């Protein structure tokens, strides 16, 4: 049995894929082209029944939500580092301790900065 294939051997598969894709595309285009179209106000409404649409769905949301959300993610993710440290506390020894203190120090500095900047004040 032939076990080595050259790219040319895959040609039938490629043709098969092309045909399948071509069929779908052609069908969609053709139906669009030959189908009758009648527009009216009622017909173009999103809903034919229920409450009339009011305004745009894209209303601005206060930037504070994003800030709080992002800050939460930030600090939450950083705290994850505490778990592996706690598990390996003995093994990492003094170096690990100092590194962690530096890390937490920086984190706290950031936290202090945020509070001083008034990011968490809601008004």
């Amino acid at each position, binding site marked *: 049995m032939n076990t080595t294939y050259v790219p040319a051997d895959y040609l039938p598969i490629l043709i098969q894929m092309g045909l399948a894709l071509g069929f779908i595309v052609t069908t969609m285009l053709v139906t669009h082209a030959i189908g009758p179209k009648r527009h009216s106000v009622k017909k173009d409404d999103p809903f034919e029944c229920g409450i009339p649409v009011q305004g745009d769905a894209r209303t601005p949301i206060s930037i504070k939500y994003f800030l709080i959300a992002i800050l939460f993610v930030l600090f939450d993710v950083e705290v994850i580092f505490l778990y592996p440290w706690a598990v390996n506390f003995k093994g990492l020894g003094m170096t690990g301790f100092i590194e962690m203190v530096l890390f937490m120090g*920086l984190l706290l*500095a950031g936290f202090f*900065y945020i509070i*001083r900047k008034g990011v968490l004040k809601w008004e």
Partner: protein
Amino acid sequence: MFPIVLLSVFAVVLLFLGFLKSRSVLLPATLLFLVAALVANFLDWNKTYLYFNSMLRTDNLSMVFTAIVLLSSFLVVALSGSFEDDEAAQPAEYYAIILFSLVGAIMMIGYENLVMLFVGVEILSVAMYILTGSDKRNLRSNEAALKYFLMGAFATGIMLFGMALLYGASGSFTLAGIASYASHAQQGLSLIFYVGLLMLLVGLLFKVSAAPFHFWTPDVYDGAPTIFTAYMSTVVKTAGFAALLHLLAASFTYVYSFWGIILAVVTAITLIAGNVTAVYQNSFKRMMAYSSISHAGYLLIGLAALSAQSRQAIVFYSLAYSIATISAFGVLMLVTRQRGMQTLSSNPLSNESFDAFNGLAKQNPLLGLAMATSMLSLAGIPLTAGFWGKFYMFSTAVERGQIWLLVVAVLMSAVGIYYYFRVIIAMYFRDGATEPIRISPVFRYVLVAAIILTIGLGVAPGLLQGLF
């Protein structure tokens, strides 16, 4: 390595200094920090070290690039004038972001591992997105930031994909590992390797705004506040070229035949696109944006040739280019500010046009001289640093035998003279009813220093040689 540590700490300190009532301490503090970093940078002089498990390295070349980057940011910060006339500005944050971005730039200069390169590029780029949009009330600034961010993210994706493919092919993220894989080029390398290399190159070429990946440049440079445009067009470019040079020289010399021709074609396209398009511009700032694209082209000559002289050529060129660009943007800032006050026109476009410079040399000889010197240097006229920069670049191309590229470059520098001299003509031969512009002492010192450096390097280019 000291600058990275120092700058990180200093940046945090600056953030807290911002809580002080008085803004006046920020500018001197930042300048002091930069000088400290510059001094610390040279502590390892003439030694070669690997840091952080061979993630980063310092040698003389990387130290010289770091020094150029620090010097450029020193000049830019000194010209920023602590944003005293802008109430809404937040100088502490701006300076801190500049320092953080410098950390990224230094990582890009001294990386030994592709991951470090990626981290450096991202630190620098994200900082730039913020600075571009820092003029929050200005629509153009916002638009520029968004464009920069979207396109930058796109390019980063491509670059990261390239790194992943390289890792897949060679099994290593370190430059040395990739180089040892590439050294078997004779036996044939995996296709993945070549694809990865191309994608990584495309990502980095985007960052240095080489054509055809330059489309973001004019819009972003034009929209960003002028002071940050000066920063972007010098520091980011220098760091980008240092990264490219290190990457290609350390890992991919074995496969030069593969990428050399591509880079040469990109170089030619960049030169043509930058120089020719700059001719038509009416805004000086936009002209400078295209000029920065064209200078990316000149710098690329050294990379496309990658000969023994390339290192020296790229170092010299980036220094000459940075100094000239910063002082040109400095003068532009003064002129724009004064025009804005004089005409009370809210349309910044007219304040940045070439006409804004009419008669400048008669009212402010120093500003005229500074601008003329930088324009001559950018155009590559002898007795300025820019001339020798171009000269070294062209000689690398000659060494490689890329004569066609040389011809394109020479023709394009002739085109360059046209638009650089428009400013000089406007300043010296046109009349403008301008009041003399008041220049603060710091500005004066920076401009004089830039003039002296440009002409000094132009008269004695040997001063910088033999340093590394």
